[in-house]
């Protein structure tokens, strides 16, 4: 299992934990991560406007680079994953976009359309397998009620992201089961935390995140896990003592890799 | 005949009576347009279409031939469309060998309820054949009095 690992900018700065615990867990699980030497930002947000080509080019570059080696881009940040997966989908299915991009980038070999953008959770599910993961757990979260927070970027648009059922996802819940915890199902797990609107008005993020935390706690959650640095920021800012972790941190802890 | 030199292809469409011909009728009932270049020959089943008919069409100057039948598993005669599919696979590979572009022949499954699909298929096929230009490879002038 070899992947081109794309950590993304935030994982180098504010979300070092998300990255660090992923790397040590991946090694333990037998996943080989190749980090391209000179990767650039994915672009941050996918532009929905059909006439926006330029700001998708950095993602195109990452995908085309992966095309030359492993053919599999591994991501973990929800935002990077969303952008890369959707740009990859455009390259495969939007003829007009692909044509313009090829014209501009002039790659030596045209994009094969074979690159897969894979989220670390998907790799855990499909390549490692939750059963195998469970068998490797040394410090299970037995008795812990853990609420998975998906947010919006991982699941939507469902047809493109295709990670799981966008309204009734199970991938994080199955991950929680694999590390010995008890998943808590709550309705707002796939609602937005407020996202980038925190720059527009912090009150928006506080309200959105507050409703999510309240819902998770009401349904009995002890802990919450997320895959997204921005969700983490908004949730933590709103409910500092909620117990919110990156899922990779719990993974590393369950595997006995977390230094105390 | 119109005098402009824009190429309009001659397309022969064989349609089975139960599904595709009814689908074509439905396209009509719903007023879904497709080019007048398509002329339909009604046959009881797609398996009635002898590869000879298709060769004859090309010999006579057709630019494209399409065969439409019921969806696999839905044939009115249980298995006719499977025979048709197998026969056409052989014929088309032979035509390909002879240098007749693969795009000039096609097999499509269109049910009686798929008027929209019928029209879309015909539009696409005519478009494809028009782009290829006239077919002269098999045309036999002796056939033309």
């Amino acid at each position, binding site marked *: 299992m070899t992947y081109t690992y794309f950590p993304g900018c935030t994982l180098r700065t504010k979300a070092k934990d998300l990255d660090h615990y992923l790397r040590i867990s991946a090694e333990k699980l037998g996943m080989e991560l190749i980090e391209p030497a000179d990767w650039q930002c994915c672009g941050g947000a996918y532009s929905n406007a059909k006439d926006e080509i330029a700001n998708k080019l950095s993602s195109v570059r990452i995908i085309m680079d992966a095309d030359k080696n492993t053919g599999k881009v591994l991501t973990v940040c929800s935002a990077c994953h969303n952008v890369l997966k959707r740009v990859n989908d455009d390259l495969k299915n939007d003829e007009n976009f692909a044509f313009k991009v090829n014209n501009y980038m002039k790659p030596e070999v045209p994009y094969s359309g074979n690159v897969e953008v894979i989220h670390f959770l998907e790799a855990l599910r499909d390549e490692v397998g939750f059963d195998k993961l469970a068998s490797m757990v040394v410090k299970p979260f037995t008795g812990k009620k853990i609420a998975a927070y998906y947010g919006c970027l991982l699941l939507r648009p469902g047809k493109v992201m295709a990670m799981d059922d966008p309204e009734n996802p199970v991938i994080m819940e199955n991950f929680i089961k694999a590390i010995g915890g008890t998943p808590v199902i709550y309705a707002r797990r796939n609602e937005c935390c407020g996202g980038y609107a925190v720059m527009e008005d912090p009150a928006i993020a506080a309200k959105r995140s507050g409703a999510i935390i309240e819902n998770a706690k009401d349904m009995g959650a002890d802990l919450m896990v997320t895959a997204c640095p921005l969700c983490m920021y908004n949730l933590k800012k709103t409910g500092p003592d909620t117990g919110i972790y990156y899922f990779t941190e719990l993974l590393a802890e369950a595997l006995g890799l977390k230094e105390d | 005949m119109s005098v402009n030199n824009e190429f309009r292809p001659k397309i022969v469409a064989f349609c089975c009576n139960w599904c595709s011909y009814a689908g*074509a009728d439905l396209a009509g009932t719903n007023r*879904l347009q497709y080019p007048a270049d398509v002329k339909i*020959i009604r046959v*009881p*089943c797609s398996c009635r279409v*002898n590869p000879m008919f298709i060769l004859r069409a090309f010999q*006579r100057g057709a630019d494209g031939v399409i065969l439409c039948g019921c969806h696999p598993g839905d044939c009115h005669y249980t298995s006719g469309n499977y025979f048709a599919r197998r026969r056409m696979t052989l014929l088309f590979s032979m035509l390909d060998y002879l240098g007749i572009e693969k795009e000039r022949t096609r097999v499509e499954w269109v049910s009686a309820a798929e008027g929209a699909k019928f029209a879309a298929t015909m539009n696409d096929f005519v478009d494809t054949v028009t782009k290829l230009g006239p077919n002269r490879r098999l045309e036999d002038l002796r056939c033309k009095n």
Partner: protein
Amino acid sequence: MNRIGVFVCHCGTNIAATVDVHRVAETLGKEPSVVIAKDYQYMCSEAGQNMIKDAIREYGLTGLVVCSCSPRMHEATFRKAAASAGLNPYLVEIANIREQDSWIHKDIEEATEKAVILGRTAIAKVQLNTPLTAGESPVTKRALVIGGGIAGIQTALDIAEAGFEVDIVEKQPTIGGKMAQIDKTFPTLDCAACILTPKMVDCAQNDKITIYSYSEVAAVSGFVGNFSVKIKRKARFVDETKCTGCGLCTEKCPQKKVPNEFNLGLDNRRAIYIPFAQAVPKVATIDPDYCNMLKNGKCGVCAKVCGAQAIDYKAQDTYVEQQYGAIVVATGFNPINIDAYDEYAYSQSQNVVTSLELERLMNAAGPNGGTLLRPSDKKHPKTIVFVQCVGSRCDDSRGKGYCSKICCMYTAKHAMLIREKYPDTNVYVFYIDVRTPGKNFDEFYRRAVEQYNVHYVKGQVGKVVPKSDGNLIVYGSDLIEGKRLVIDADMVVLAAAIEPDKSARSIATMLTASMDTNDFFTEAHPKLRPVESPTAGIFLSGVCQGPKDIPETVAQATACAGKVIGLLVKDKLTCNPCVAHSDELMCNGCSSCEKVCPYGAITYEEKGFRQPDRTTKMRRVAIVNEAVCQGCGACTVACPSGAMDLKGFANKQIMAEVDAICL
């Protein structure tokens, strides 16, 4: 020498608006062998037909071409007209210049040119037509009804009433279908069981009707008038002839944790069970997935308590073969699986239920004995939100593109019944449109609003958030007020779309009956032949053809029975004369044709042929059984010697059509 008559129909303006019909008639009139060419406003009218008949007599026509609508519409009409004027009906060809010309083109020049070519093609073909005579085949005077819901029951009763034998095949242990699960019916609010169960009993008692319950159709062969059907009778492990339906076994069975499908899993039944009190046949069935005796040989309680000694743990599936003249499809519907619509939290909360589940919750024979209690904590709900169109009218991969038709009315019924019984309950109905066409339907809906004060809100619910106390926060648009409502509800009821039963697809394949993209059976004509499949001898009853409510279903079921009776009263059916025929002089007996024939219509015979030297040589040649051949033409292409040909669609005829098109 051919003498062809050409008649071009205007079809009012349907054809004439886009096709220059005079020019078509004039041009085709100049074709060699055409002796008369005319156009007329409505060829199918009596005057139009008379024009054809007169021409046949006057000009001694040898062939007739009508340029008009699709042959699927009026070929029979013109053939009949020709026959009445003394011309063999199979010397008539139709050029389809309406559905396949005037209706799909706008340019008059192009459409006219195409009409001429289509006319020419028909002329080319008709010159090679030969007079054909249709044979006859006998009719088995027995009908099969697939599905024992209200549609199947009504059709069977009506056919039996006319004196014909009818068999009902029902895959469940009892007949009754969805109607048996419903509490009250709209718009009269009479009890569903009270009007359905007498009909179920009538079926059981009618000596013309045989019920094969817990059975499935396994294979179908043959054709109209002569179907042969294999019915699989699933092992019930209870001898139907011995079981008295006392129900003792169903009380003593120790396996109590089996989800009760009749109550949609809202409560449990035993491993041996009778679905409901009025089941027909009222006999027990053992569920092999749960029975300990069948699974590991450890139990046997039911056999011990059965006074009638009806239990047979060693029972096997059995098969029955039966002949039928007609087959009725009445396979019905199911609500769709709404797991994909989890923004409504159906999978997250027991208090979010489907409308069919609500029927059971409100039914006196249901899990709560008719008291409406919410499933999570058995409390009386005080606020109930109904959500319409869950999966109906959806242009996405989750739902169905069509309107399920019955939801508006049953939701009004539910809302009304709840307000009637529990006046302290707040009831909201979120609707996109309220659709109530039907006798006394809109009046019924207005009563729900005006008399029962049900809150109808124009808008849709977007999200349901369950709370730990079992309550539900419902977010819904109120488009009239222009705001969003946030309702703290005790229960949410989802009007799930309905879809054809899953078994319908395989049944359609067995019957070679066509279906639409939603798996509803296609009717022979959407307006004029609504209860027949395009496949002769197959008839449609109930929701298998499209969503409908009970009164419509019963009306269609009876109409369907009428069509079946019309077929069964005939002693002989006219066969399709367009069948295969082998030229024995060219046939070399290679068996290629026999191998592709789906009907086994081809046999071989050793036949003597006179040789030039006046000796007789014996040779094996193919013989087509014309009563069995359905005229698909598979054999004609398989034949390497060109001996096999199809009457009415002969090689030469089709070649002539190809030539005419490519000219």
